[in-house]
């Protein structure tokens, strides 16, 4: 339990640093820390396969893209302040805790009523085999749709990032 508290603390701290640090590169690094924390949570939640793909896909591939773009654009200048910015900022800080409250009430109610499921884990819980079985039986159409989405995104990214010949 102590370990989970420590990881939760690190996760929230790193999330705050993502939002409030001025340098995009530092934000990226703290986001990676945050993603690794989430991966560790997955490990505690018996989701070993998700732990691995969280590290490979999220922390490994998606974040490398971010690191790459930050280095490519070499963004070092700070954001300038605009009119109306203060109001938006103040509103954001009011809305944030409200959002936590709203989410927590919704999730907490749900959490209480679910004590009717005390059963043990099946032996394959969280393994690649069982996720594969679900993906290719119950969620086959969604899986194929996801592959189409990836192809479209890939083409889109290539078209967007291409230099126009002039």
């Amino acid at each position, binding site marked *: 339990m102590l370990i989970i508290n420590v990881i939760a603390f690190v996760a929230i701290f790193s999330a705050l640093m993502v939002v409030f640090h001025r340098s995009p*590169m530092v934000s990226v690094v703290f986001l990676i820390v945050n993603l690794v924390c989430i991966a560790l949570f997955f490990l505690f939640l018996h989701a070993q396969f998700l*732990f*691995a793909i969280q590290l490979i896909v999220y*922390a*490994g591939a998606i974040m*490398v893209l971010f690191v*790459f773009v930050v*280095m490519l654009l*070499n963004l070092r200048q700070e954001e300038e302040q605009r009119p109306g910015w203060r109001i938006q900022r103040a509103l954001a800080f009011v809305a944030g805790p409200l959002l936590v409250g709203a989410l927590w009430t919704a999730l907490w109610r749900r959490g209480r009523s679910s004590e009717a499921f005390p059963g043990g884990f099946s032996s394959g819980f969280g393994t690649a085999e069982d996720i594969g079985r679900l993906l290719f039986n119950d969620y086959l159409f969604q899986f194929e749709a996801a592959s189409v989405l990836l192809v479209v995104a890939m083409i889109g990214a290539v078209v967007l990032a291409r230099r126009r010949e002039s």
Partner: protein
Amino acid sequence: MEPSVLSLIIESLVKVVFVIGLVMGGVTYMTWVERRVAAIIQDRLGPNRVGIAGLLQPIADGLKFLFKEDVIPPHVYKPFYILAPTLIFIPSLLGSTVIPFGDSIHLFGRDIPLRVADLNVGILFIFAMSAMGVYGIALAGWASNNKFSLMGGLRSSAQLISYELAMGLSVVGVLMAAGSLRLNEVVEYQSGFHWNAFTQPIGLLCFVVAAFAETNRAPFDLPECESELVAGYHTEYSSMKFAMFMMAEYANMITAAALMVTLFFGGWQVPGLSKASLSPLAVSLIQVGAFLFKTAFFLFLFVWVRWTLPRFRFDQLMDLGWKALFPLALLQVFATGLGILKGWL
């Protein structure tokens, strides 16, 4: 007899110390092997003065690195500059912990499996760790605040992400055939000389090339590439921090070589060993020895290739990754699927 918790902890500790000791010892002596083999290939002698045949040279080098002044240039971004060498080194060590270096050994009245951790996502864990290794290089390049370092970091992140795809796909065939992500089951599947290297040669080719690229070894060492980028991402590093980059490179090589052996060359399996009537302890030791021998061969291959082939240009590197290795690895996946469907495998 049920093993007590204490003995399990001691057992794991001994195994961790053994594996890390093995990797670190390998790292130390790979520097010597690299320099000697390079010298032989280039018709020179190489370091042969410290100890017999220069065998104490790595220790002398290590001491030199320790006592050198640790220069931190004023223009670097300090937190990341200091963090980067650690960040590249730790994942490379962690990756080696899931590789089975033997079957199980019968000692003190019980069977001890010869691997530190038996994760049911074994191979994915290694990929995860190699994916985390990119950040060490990218951050070192960025934090150094130097155009050559930045170019090195950029190149490395683009290169590793491209070759990770080919590497992942080339392993899919092996995993399909073995029907498991556990490395030990992959090894057991290859018992009796049924090595994946024979049934999946294209996958092996893609994996070896991708592994060279993933470990930033020549002919894929564009992130450091001394003829264009001075020393790439570690231009600004000196003393022990520089040594950390070097050690991480060799540790990655060792993990990659061990992975090649595990996935394609039967791991700790020795063909025909079960026919010879030997005591179980001797069989276990021979298997560990066989694993180390095979790994040593692939480490030698790494060195051999580095001092034989010229470096790629960056566009050639990208072409090779995306236009050659990626389709070939896909082809291997389809071929393996067909083989399983027809019952050939």
